């Protein structure tokens, strides 16, 4: 049995519309010896309904944590929202006795109990803490020398610092470190740790798209050829909404947005088809040509 064995929490957004993220993650994780155990039962992490009902968010998250406890495995996710929520609720239930009692009261009605025996991790925590940079470096076959990218880590992996505290929220370094292992250069840009706007797009799309647009502007200004994300929702804003932003503001970006496993996969020598690069809305053909991959 592998020491890198996790329960794979896929979440809702990835199967709904960002399958290429899952495809590339499964391929690259296998190369790193990460074993994904499929869940037979799961539900939404709870985050989307938190603004309307914190209590509902908590029971939904707690139910997933209980399922992982029953299997005796730590959770791995590809989504910063899922990871952030499960991590936050796990910690609150472990630390706040009154809250745990209340939630366990609900859970007992469906034959479950929160015990606090597992952890929930985003895969970039797993890569840094469990896999380790050395093992990733050993997996690189075609370093992406000369490629300039910008990272967007996503709010729910960074803040509130009091809960997460594993990266500097004003100057996040973990994803940057991982990107540099691929041989690509990761550029700094203005307001780097700022939000993508996804959570309010259904409330006020004008404000949400202006947040996304501003980040795209700053990234272009820094001279990046591509952007790298680790969250399906952030990715939808920067990739899928990019042409809409271009039309709405009469501005051209043409900035490819790769999921980190796609970037890592290219550096491991996997082909663009294996990494489902063709499913990206903004074509990455220019960077593939520059890297002499196609």
């Amino acid at each position, binding site marked *: 049995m592998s020491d890198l064995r996790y329960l794979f929490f896929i979440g809702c957004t990835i199967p*709904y519309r960002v399958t290429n993220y899952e495809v590339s993650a499964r391929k690259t994780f296998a190369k790193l010896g990460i074993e994904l155990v499929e869940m037979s039962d799961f539900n939404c992490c709870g985050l989307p309904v938190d603004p309307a009902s914190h209590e509902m968010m908590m029971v*939904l998250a707690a139910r997933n944590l209980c399922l992982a406890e029953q299997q005796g495995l730590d959770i791995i996710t590809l989504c910063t929202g899922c990871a952030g929520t499960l991590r936050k609720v796990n910690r609150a239930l472990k630390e706040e006795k009154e809250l745990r009692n209340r939630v366990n009261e609900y859970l007992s009605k469906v034959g479950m109990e929160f015990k606090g025996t597992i952890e929930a991790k985003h895969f970039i925590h797993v890569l840094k803490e469990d896999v380790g940079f050395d093992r990733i470096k050993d997996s690189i076959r075609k370093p992406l020398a000369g490629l300039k990218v910008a990272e967007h880590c996503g709010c729910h992996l960074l803040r509130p610092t009091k809960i997460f505290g594993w990266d500097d929220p004003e100057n996040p370094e973990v994803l940057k470190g991982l990107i540099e292992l691929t041989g690509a250069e990761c550029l700094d840009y203005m307001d780097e740790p700022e939000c993508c706007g996804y959570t309010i797009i259904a409330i*006020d799309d004008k404000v949400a798209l202006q947040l996304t647009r501003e980040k795209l502007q700053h990234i272009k200004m820094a001279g990046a050829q591509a952007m790298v994300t680790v969250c399906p929702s952030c990715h939808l804003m920067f990739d899928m909404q990019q042409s809409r932003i271009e039309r709405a503001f009469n501005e051209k970006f043409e900035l490819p947005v790769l999921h980190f496993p796609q970037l890592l996969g290219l550096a491991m020598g996997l082909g663009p088809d294996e990494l489902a690069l063709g499913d990206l809305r903004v074509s990455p053909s220019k960077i593939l040509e520059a890297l002499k991959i196609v």
Partner: protein
Amino acid sequence: MADKPEMPKMNAETLKLDPSFKYEVMKEHDGETLKVCFQCGSCTSSCPTARFSTSYRPRTILRMAQLGLRRKVLESQTLWLCTACFTCTDRCPQNVEVANVLRVLRNLAVKKGQIPGIFTELASNIYATGYVYKIPEMRLRKRAELGLPPLPKANLDGVDKLIELAGGRKLLKSAEVR
């Protein structure tokens, strides 16, 4: 896409101060720190939404809550423009859980029946399918074509019971309630 989200009319009723309101907020999970906000404005100046919205100002909302402007706070559409990025919470010199206090206020607005349609939609999807989105058949077929394993399914008997126990029934479309 309104630039200025609708604000409740400023009549005597809306402006009535209710000193008990702050205690209502403070007794909710993570709502306690409302009392220590000293109005420096670090939250508003750090807020990405505030840069582009003409009406969303976290500091103003917190002050209105402290003063007890219950209706003006809970009926305001701007309350829903928080992206939950938690930059305000991180930068608050008083350790006010700004984003959480704002979430408590939105949760209270829901209890008073102010629910933006999107949340009814999302909650009903979870209740009916376990997922927050209704995933089309076509997507499931595409998974198989790509060689991906089938999607895990939620045991809905557990999920719907928990949602009801947690008071989520009011968020559901009536057609979804079993």
